[in-house]
């Protein structure tokens, strides 16, 4: 009998950049928008704690084209984050039973996105309503 000598193929280091994994990598990359926005808020809180002049610097930064472009990217990232979040959420839950039937995963996604949309509208409404 010949001895077996199995061949182990090396893992491609760039697998995350190729289809079908690129979509997953982009989903994970939306975390950069979440962290990035948190850092902008943190900078604002630190400036607020420092004093009015520091805080005005932060406000001026927010008005700059750099910041506005950055926030457009953040917004795209946040929306992508929300959408992909609710796409994957049903996978993290056991099979739910509603009204004697297993709830299809797509309904969980649809429900989640609906809640997110309602939450978006609500927050914007509250902001516009409480503005000076």
């Amino acid at each position: 009998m010949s001895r077996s000598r199995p061949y182990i193929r090396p893992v491609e280091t760039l697998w995350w950049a190729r289809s079908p994994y690129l979509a997953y990598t982009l989903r994970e990359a939306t975390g950069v928008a979440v962290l990035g926005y948190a850092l902008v808020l943190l900078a604002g809180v630190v400036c607020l704690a420092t004093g009015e002049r520091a805080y005005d610097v932060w406000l001026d930064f927010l008005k700059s084209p750099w910041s506005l472009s950055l926030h457009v990217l953040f917004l795209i990232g946040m929306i992508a984050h929300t959408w992909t979040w609710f796409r994957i959420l049903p996978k993290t839950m056991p099979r739910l039973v509603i009204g004697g039937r297993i709830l299809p995963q797509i309904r969980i996604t649809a429900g989640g996105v609906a809640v997110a949309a309602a939450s978006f509208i609500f927050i914007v409404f509250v902001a516009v309503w409480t503005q000076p």
Partner: protein
Amino acid sequence: MLAALIGPALVLLTGLAAPTGIGLTNNFMSFARAMAFAQHPLGKLILFIVIVLFIWHGAERIYLTLRDMHAGAKFSLMWICYMTAGVLTLITIGALATIGS
């Protein structure tokens, strides 16, 4: 989950609407209003939760992505990502405490 629910609205309001004055008045985030918000215990809590949860969620996603990309040894990446998140959390606590009430 928090980022998924409130992230887009916050970015739109604080990053685009308030600075440009489109949709919100220009002094939506004025020093006086910001201070009043941050000095209130509920405002502090909201700022803390939003900033800290976003930081940790972002840190985890970035750690996993860097690990997928073979950017470094698993433990080094873990340390860098989560230590940074820890430090930023402490800064947040410090800044909010400094604002006082």
